């Protein structure tokens, strides 16, 4: 009989091994699924994991990895702080949308003025939009003890409605003859967020993501605040004795994750997406939750996890186009990754014990 036994201390080995084992198991289970769909599993796995990095069009796709990973990393790092402290911001998608709308609105309001300050101000506005949207669940939690999971999630749908209003109404391109969608930022240099080096796929969002990862790594390792965040998640009572005010921590973590999600939204809408449209948001806010856990809530882990997730997206797209795989199969494949990750994660806190039936029988005797 197999039993789970709680470890006295989380296993260092399994904390590192979990993501790797999860990826390998996903490849196996996914391969099985691809095989039942009538595709050659090895070819599909190779298309997803190998071709974007080393295949024929890798020169283009490697850059795209950063385009896709940038917003995921930025959002996931913000989320990871709250997740460490036991504060569950599930509504990053909404904060991402609101950041994009606020930042874009600032830029569009001054169109077509050319000034070096416009883009920096838009960045601030984007962060503010995400922060403000995250403050709603934060304040409701600290004042009325509402559940931040539900409130932040529900606010995603409100944000989507506001996005539709923006695309159809107050941010609509006045020269777009009634069609939805704002002006395209690519034709407005002062407010655009183009690639910094042509072909690299790296835009300001990616730069911010990497800088943020570095800063938060230092915060968590070296700063008292990082210690308090970790403590609040692991031992709330001890944290109180240590002088941690839970309300302040909620406001801080929600605000920071909201602001980072807002930033990601702004960089996306001014860069790769190009314009506010009815559904420019592509679910980064939700995928970032997977990325945060895949990266063990560690800023450097998240950078790797974000790149891996981007790889499954881009490789998955290639598998869909070139091998005729249904897009739902690719999504299921990504879902498996989280599933195995959470399942194997048990191993960091528990160990498997094969309680032999012999021992049991002895007990009976």
């Amino acid at each position, binding site marked *: 009989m197999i039993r789970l036994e709680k470890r006295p201390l989380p296993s260092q080995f399994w904390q590192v091994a979990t993501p790797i084992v999860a990826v390998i198991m996903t490849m196996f289970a996914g391969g099985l699924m691809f095989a039942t769909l009538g595709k050659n599993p090895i070819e599909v796995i190779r298309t997803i994991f190998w071709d974007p990095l080393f295949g024929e069009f890798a020169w283009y796709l490697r850059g795209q990895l950063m385009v896709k990973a940038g917003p995921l990393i930025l959002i996931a790092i913000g989320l990871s702080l709250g997740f460490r402290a036991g504060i569950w911001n599930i509504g990053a998608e909404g904060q991402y949308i609101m950041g994009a709308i606020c930042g874009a609105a600032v830029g569009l309001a001054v169109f077509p003025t050319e000034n070096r300050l416009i883009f920096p101000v838009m960045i601030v506005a984007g962060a503010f939009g995400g922060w403000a949207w995250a403050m709603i669940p934060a304040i409701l939690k600290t004042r009325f003890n509402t559940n931040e999971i539900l409130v932040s999630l529900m606010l995603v749908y409100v944000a989507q409605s506001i996005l539709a209003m923006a695309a159809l109404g107050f941010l609509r391109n006045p020269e777009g003859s009634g069609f939805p969608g704002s002006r395209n930022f690519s034709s407005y240099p002062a407010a655009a967020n183009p690639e910094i080096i042509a072909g690299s796929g790296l835009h300001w969002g990616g730069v911010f993501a990497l800088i943020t990862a570095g800063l938060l790594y230092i915060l968590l390792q070296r700063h008292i605040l990082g210690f308090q965040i970790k403590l609040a998640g692991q031992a709330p009572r001890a944290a109180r004795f240590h002088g941690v005010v839970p309300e302040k921590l909620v406001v801080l973590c929600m605000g920071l994750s909201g602001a980072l999600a807002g930033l990601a939204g702004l960089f996306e809408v001014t860069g790769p997406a190009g314009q506010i*449209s009815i559904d420019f948001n592509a679910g980064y806010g939700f995928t970032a939750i997977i990325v945060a856990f895949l990266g063990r809530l560690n800023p450097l882990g998240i950078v790797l996890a974000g790149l891996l997730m981007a790889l499954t997206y881009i490789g998955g797209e290639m598998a869909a186009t070139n091998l005729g795989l249904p897009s739902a199969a690719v999504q299921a494949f990504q879902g498996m990754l989280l599933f195995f990750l959470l399942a194997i994660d048990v191993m960091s806190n528990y160990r498997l014990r094969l309680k032999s039936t012999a021992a049991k029988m002895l007990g009976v005797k």
Partner: protein
Amino acid sequence: MLKRTLLATAALGLGLAFAGGANAMDKVKACFVYVGPVGDGGWTFQHDQGRLDVIAAFGDKVDASTFQENVPEGADAERVLTQMALGGCNIIFTTSFGYMDATNAVAAKFPDVKFEHATGYKRDSANVSTYNARFYEGRAVTGTIAGRMTKSNKIGYIGSFPIPEVIQGINASFIHAKKVNPDVTMSIVWAYTWFDPAKEADAAKALIEQGVDVILQHTDSTAPLAEAAKTPGVIGFGQASDMAEYKPSPRVSAIIDNWGPYYVERIGALLDGTYEQKDTWAGIGGGEVKIGDITEAVPAEVKAEAEALAASIGDGSYHPFTGPLNKQDGSPWLADGVVANDGELAGMMFYVEGIVGDIPQ
């Protein structure tokens, strides 16, 4: 003399080389980008039917096996298009309005690849063409059936987004319902989605509770029909696809998008070297819009009336927007006998007289 002949021959040869080499193609790889899943039973399904028509029409001469479903509009679309262009596609059909900027951006980088964008208006470079269908022609026909069939004199319309294409459909339906039934009123619900069965079902439910007994929809799922099926006496129409599984009632007819002929025409033009950039907006006459079989739930005389209307639109003898027509505020729009021009229709952002409510802004 000899010199001149030589030159002339050279020029002729060069010309021939151009005509042969640069234009006609032996084999075309055609690729498709879809906004939804092929199994949506509506918009994307019909585009994919068009792709299958291409395969049936050309066989080995065309490779139309490449398509990508569920492509989000925005940055992802740009990458998918780039991958397709790099992957050797000669012509790429982007089948949703939201791909407009991505299509034009990628087209600028791949001047040798032809891009065909559905329902958009931007053709920034010479290799981008646009195409759309005059769905409002079909709406005129379903509006006529709706006006005849309603007993409560209340018809409902589930709108997706308040954009000109949808407003055209609302106006065309209302004008023709009113024409055959002066007492008819129309309630409009905005779903803010093209495809969301839950939201569409809610919208249909709300309309039915208001006493609506004919539901028209500009959203792509079968959910409104499923909702109508729960209440006896409520009918609806198939949208984008035939939705024949709800025959004979509540689905009494349908507006079917038929993209096959256009796709076959364009790819054929690419093969024989006659391909040119253009903007296509065909309707019932061009075969892009079809009226789905009118079922026995509709009285024979109504069916005949609807079919006659469709025929007159098809042969060009009647235009669904023919004056006298006033705008919602009562100001004159089209004088007696005047027909709306395409420019006005393409930017239509107002209701006609008699429709209650405002277009959300």
